[in-house]
């Protein structure tokens, strides 16, 4: 069973539909026992970092994610806002986040190299792999994925960066450590390569060798 964390964020059902389509058994849940027993856990969503953190804390999910999901070795996938809240803090309303990975989240500049940069970034952009990861299996390096984001993750160490994307600035579009992996783009809305990465995650045992 794959647990999609229910925290009143948007977009939960589209991840569920994508998993249904690929044939995996999943549910949207906030029940601690279900999450503890899950084979995989996904934190998806669109929205703001502060509101997301508020909902996670109100349900005690922040502690559960940190201590029993990540700490317990369950493969964990963050998507979009789910990548942003795993860092220590976000520039977005100066939100304090989960602090699972060292680093922060910054807003795209509205002007870059003299050119106006539209914020949020909306559309398909290329994801270039920096190093192998089990969820990349069968996905072409440089394939395009669907992004909707005003903020981007800035990990404290290059060792956490698995893929990069350029939108004015070059930023980390896939980050990970151990049994945790997170994508800034929407796997569930990125066509065939997105579904493939989602399937790879669902087959992943959380180890990196």
């Amino acid at each position, binding site marked *: 069973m794959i647990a999609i964390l229910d925290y009143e964020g948007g977009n939960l059902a*589209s991840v569920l539909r994508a998993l249904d389509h690929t044939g995996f058994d999943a549910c949207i849940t906030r029940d601690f026992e279900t999450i503890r027993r899950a084979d995989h856990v996904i934190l998806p969503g669109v929205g*703001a970092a502060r509101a997301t953190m508020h909902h996670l804390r109100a349900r005690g999910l922040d502690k559960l994610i940190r201590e029993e999901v990540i700490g317990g070795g369950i493969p964990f996938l963050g998507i979009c806002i789910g990548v942003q809240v795993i860092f220590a803090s976000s520039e977005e309303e100066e939100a304090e986040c989960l602090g699972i990975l060292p680093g922060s989240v910054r807003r795209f500049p509205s002007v870059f190299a003299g050119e106006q940069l539209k914020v949020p970034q*909306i*559309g*398909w952009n290329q994801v270039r792999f920096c190093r192998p990861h089990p969820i990349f299996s069968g996905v072409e390096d440089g394939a*395009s994925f*669907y992004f909707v984001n005003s903020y981007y993750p800035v990990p404290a160490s290059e060792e956490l960066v698995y893929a990069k994307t350029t939108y004015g600035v070059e930023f980390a579009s896939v980050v990970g450590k151990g049994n945790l992996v997170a994508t800034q783009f929407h796997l569930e*809305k*990125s066509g*065939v390569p997105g579904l493939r990465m989602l399937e790879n995650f669902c087959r992943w045992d959380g180890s990196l060798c």
Partner: protein
Amino acid sequence: MLTKRIIPCLDVRAGKVTKGVAFQGNVDVGDPVAMAKHYYEQGADEIVFYDITASHERRDIMIDVVASVAREIFIPFSVGGGLRTLSDMRRVLLAGAEKVSIDSGAVRNPDTIRQGAKAFGRQCIVLSMQVKRVPCTPNIPSGYEIFIDGARTATGLDAIEWAQRGEELGAGELVVNSIDADGVKTGYDVDLTRRMAEAVGIPVIASGGAGEPSHLYDVFSQGNADAAIVASMIHFGTYSIPEIKDYLHRRGLPIRMV
């Protein structure tokens, strides 16, 4: 680098695609779910549905269509047509659409844009506008006026000013439909699109007038559009999405190839 998006548009009335279609192969012509799936597999970057069902009670059919589409395609899609209230928008988003498109309803009640952006995030709110060339006047300094209700009713609003107001109110993207270019197949209104792209800081989606791949090239390269809507040029089988994308890619534009 962000790619230029190609967005097929399907007009749906009472659960069926209305414009004539001449698909080759085994696509169930007129079925919005089958057509959306076909375009998804062909490499569409996004899909737009306009519900042109007249009567209110039949809108439930559109919700069923949205829910079925959401189970079959895994790219973003938006739904527009007759959405007036927050609860109209919420139903469509909960059924699986990524975005809602508002048009005449936003002109009548601009606060709809603000409310929608606050409730669902601005990336969900697409402001669609029907624009016609008119003589420049003090009220319409750009020479482009907003029309509503299927291009029948003039509003006295300047199109550029309305676009900027829409952005301020919280629209995440703009669809700019040229009434003059629509259905004529002689190309998008490149001047209008470029002026919109210069006037706002959100993505601009050109609509109306596409008849051949070079029209998309022009509106992307000279009109600075972020995306372009295509309808009859693909619905009638004159061109396929891969053909259009190949053409644009060969001419050097950033295009998502699948």
